[in-house]
């Protein structure tokens, strides 16, 4: 119980700190209120019209009042509308979230799908040709920024071979599954490439250490098959770093792949946040930030739980308090 309360308190602190700092940062952007008013009203506004807009948006109130008013709206679910397009902010966020979720899930899935077996075999066959090729290619992939990878993929698979669409206009998984997967294919691969490289290197290192453990030697001596040795006995204790890294990346992928989103024209949380910053849509940015913060916190919580599942010693030590 105390653990839960402690986590709740941490969550609340993080949310308040992050959103308050964001609130300040937004108001320190170049141009200040003037740019915001101009974006909302256009370049011909008289001082009276500009003042009226300031009042309408509540910007004439002290920052703390604005912040707590926003916090109240957030908690009660009255998120309001965007200042320029009059779209319900909740709707905009609901529209962006699935895109980011799909990108994150598909990117992670592809990366792990390739990284785990590659890393395991690479560790098992350390210093062989396969290991060297895998490691070298991973270094190469880590070095390639996604704004280089994306255009190359588009040139080959969209423009030349016309297999996948570009841009990747969002299609619902339930309404048009084939188009959906085709739309997300190239962005997911773009995201997955550096992820794969990082995961592969991480897991390989941990696997090498695990495979040198006594229990592995014992298992081998008892005649355990190689696949079982690698993927059951060896892999499980090697997953800590990978799980931690993947968990951190969940949050990063939800809001941080704005370059991929921008390039492929996918309106995910990253693009929504960045566009809202440019447009000085203060409430939208704050909502996006708090959602991303909550995702990070939630993911970390579940990762902590996952540790206990992965390693029974963690369960035991927690039980002992």
């Amino acid at each position: 119980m105390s653990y839960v309360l402690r986590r709740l308190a941490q969550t609340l602190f993080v949310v308040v700190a992050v959103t308050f700092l964001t609130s300040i940062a937004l108001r320190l952007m170049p141009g200040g209120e003037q740019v915001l008013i101009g974006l909302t009203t256009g370049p011909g506004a008289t001082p009276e019209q500009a003042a009226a807009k300031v009042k309408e948006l509540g910007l004439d109130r002290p920052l703390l009042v604005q912040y707590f008013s926003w916090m109240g709206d957030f908690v009660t679910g009255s998120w309001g509308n965007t200042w320029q397009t009059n779209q319900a902010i909740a709707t905009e966020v609901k529209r962006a979230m699935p895109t980011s979720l799909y990108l994150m899930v598909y990117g992670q899935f592809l990366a792990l799908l390739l990284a785990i077996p590659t890393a395991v075999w690479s560790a098992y066959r350390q210093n062989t040709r396969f290991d060297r090729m895998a490691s070298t290619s991973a270094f190469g992939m880590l070095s390639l920024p996604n704004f280089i990878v994306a255009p190359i993929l588009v040139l080959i698979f969209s423009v030349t071979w016309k297999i996948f669409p570009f841009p990747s206009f969002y299609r619902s998984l339930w309404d048009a599954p084939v188009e959906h997967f085709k739309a997300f294919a190239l962005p997911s691969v773009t995201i997955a490439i550096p992820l794969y490289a990082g995961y592969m290197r991480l897991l390989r290192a941990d696997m090498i250490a695990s495979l040198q453990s006594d229990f592995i030697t014992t298992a081998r001596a008892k005649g355990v098959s190689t696949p079982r040795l690698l993927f059951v006995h060896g892999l499980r204790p090697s997953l800590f770093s990978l799980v931690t890294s993947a968990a951190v990346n969940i949050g990063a992928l939800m809001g941080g792949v704005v370059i991929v989103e921008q390039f492929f024209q996918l309106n995910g949380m990253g693009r929504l946040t960045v566009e809202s910053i440019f447009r000085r849509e203060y409430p939208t940015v704050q909502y996006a930030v708090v959602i991303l913060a909550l995702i990070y916190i939630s993911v970390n919580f579940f990762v902590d739980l996952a540790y206990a599942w992965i390693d029974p010693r963690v369960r035991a030590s927690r039980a002992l308090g």
Partner: protein
Amino acid sequence: MSQSLTPSRRRPGRLLAALAISAGLIGAACGGDDGGTSTETTAGAGTETTAAGGTETTAAATTVPPPTTEAGIEPVAGGKVIMGIEADTSNPWRPAEMLCAIACHQVIRNIYDSLTMPNDEGSWSPYLAESVTPNDDFTVWTITARDGVTFHDGTPFDGAAIADNLTRGQAGITTGAILRSVTDVSVDPADPMSAVVTVSASWAAFPFALIGQVGYMASPAWLAASDAETTLKTAPVGTGPFVYADYKPNELFRMTKNPDYWNAPYPYLDELEFRPISDGLNRRDALSSGTIDMLHTGNGQNIAEYRVSDEVNYTEITNNGETGYTLLHVTQEGSPLQDRRVRCALAYATDNPALNETIGASVNELANGPFSPTQIGYLEDSGFPMEQDMAMAQQLIAEYKAEFPGPISLALATTQDQTNLTIAQFQQQWWIEAGIDEVTIDQIDQASYILTAAFGDFQVFQWRNHGGFDLDQQYFWWHSTAAADVGALALNFGRIKDPALDALLDENRASDDPARKQEIAEEVNRLFATECYNLWGSYSTWGIASKTNVQPPTGFELPDGKNVVFGAGISGVFYAMTVWVEP
């Protein structure tokens, strides 16, 4: 004037004849341009830029009509087209509140009709309006609604609708600036189908103002409903060839055919969808990959490719085009740009032909003034330096420094677009060679870009503007009454305060004498060249490329029998209702 030619790229090798129409209307100033903005600004390099604004003005000299469908080929109704546009407006779509640039007008002109349209005689024709009639001194205008037209929601289009829209326009930020001299708008008591507009001073060019944003007619019922429920603002209701279906900011704007459109047989398409793809090269790739069916582009490299490509249908719009240029803030306190010698030195130092060739692929024609060849006021030789003359530039700077000793520093603002940055770097290099001691380049995010100009918070600024039909369309860009102090929003971005220029603009506004208007516009052109208020780059060219089964847009006959011209006063805008798809 009969229309000729075939815009279609059915025949390999040649592009359509350039459509040089003068009568451009500039859409209402597209202020903040949503962030989507999209638009890139260029000086000489033929990419998208912002600014809009505008009013329509008089006709220009010679006009080349838009293309027509090949003889013997009948357009086919049906189908859907997805068009890639350069930006998302992300606006409420109410006429008085829109911050509209090219992409915005390209979208919304399918939902809204405008009261008047530009014709191929360099003048205007009534379109949604049955007539627009002045009194003797052009201080009272009677606008009569076209009979039998209803809005998409069934609301009748009548005098009350016109009055409602124009009254709201008066209160709008951008439209209000255009309608500043309107003192009264009311329904004609003698005719419920007419509205009467009273202006404070003779305004002969008033009908041109009705071609663009000011003249967009929205349903009064929808306007009232969206007053109360603001989320409705992004679901526009007009009288246009297409009916609103869906809008997702920064993603798509979809519309369906208006089966009861008053201007039959249009539209041909069943469905039209606009997708903002801000990067010109990505837009090109989207067409190549088949994800979109059509696009517009101002990118010189793309245009050069499309001109010789057999893989697309291609047409161009060059009429009433905007001019890419470098905008100077000429009345900033303490700025060396207050001095004509410094301004003209920058003009002499800039190698515009080299820029146009290197960066713009020589697609656009070099500009010697604000008016393109088909616009009124164009001069073959305005007196503006068209070739680099570094010796002259250095001499002018030396003269200035002899009188005002000390270093000269300039800040050059540009967008975050790589092309514009490259142009800025060239300019920086040349101006330093001319004797400017320091030239810093400030890259500004797109969303803030136009506002930086509007607030006057700049010294030198890459820009694009001044398409149009009549000089009156430039009134608020150049008149001193629109030059607010730095820190206040103003449409006269460069804060030009020139009594001679004011007098010319005022005289033009009141005049209906075509010959005198021509003279005035040419005087304005020469004045700009003499004073070097701006550094002219090139005249915009807009390319429209489409899949080979998508027939490019054409012109059409207006209700009065004249033919419409492309652009409708906004550079690069065409009539999607004329597009059709081969089955």
